[in-house]
């Protein structure tokens, strides 16, 4: 059922990240890298 599956996917995602600190760290590292594209200083350097 979509209701349960959607709730489970969110819960699963939360539990997965809660149980695997290395995964949290890897995603966070990639997130930080992506956010660098939004850093005004970095953009100014490109200009």
């Amino acid at each position, binding site marked *: *059922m979509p209701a349960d599956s*959607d709730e489970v996917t969110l819960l699963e995602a939360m539990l997965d990240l809660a149980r695997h600190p290395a995964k*949290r760290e890897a995603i966070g590292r990639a*997130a930080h890298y*992506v*956010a660098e594209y939004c850093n005004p*200083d970095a953009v100014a350097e490109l200009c």
Partner: protein
Amino acid sequence: MTIFALARRPTPLAEVTLNDRLLDSSLGVIVHSAFAQRHIQEKRPDIPTAVIPQLIAPYATHSRRAELGLSDDVVLFGSVGQITAASDTPELLANAAGSCWIRGSPHTSSSSARSCRRRPWKRRSLIWIWSHITRTGYRNLAGFVDWTTTPDVVLNLRYPTLGETSASALRAMATGRPVIVSDHGWYSELPDEAVVKRCRLIRMK
């Protein structure tokens, strides 16, 4: 019974993604997502568009975790930013016993209450998790960024979207926090390895 499904519900506001008058008076439009660009091109293919990143200035931050008095083994989940019905996550988190959740302001919908009446187990879970929520209230930017840094995982769910980006999600990403997002709109355009994308959640009554 509350059902979350991949379907459309009447959200007239979401159908008016852009203002016609704005488009009529613009020589071109700069947006922050391909999602918004696509909406413009569908409506006014004659108007040139460009996509640029939303800029988020970096801030020095420090975690406020010590203020929560939690043991080191507790994994902290947080939701930051303007919490509205569009980020209606309390009901979803009712199952997430064992975690703590921070958010900016209290909000629960009447439909959540109805759902709880029909599903007592969910009511018990919701009561549990609400008793473990810390609400920071509104903070200045420095405090806001600190609290964005505090959770181990940030939840940034949203539906509907009008094509906007999320500064809260970007700030969390900038601090190196993993973010769970709804898989639609601008969020879908974030690299798969940089966030955890979940299906968009729509309550069908």
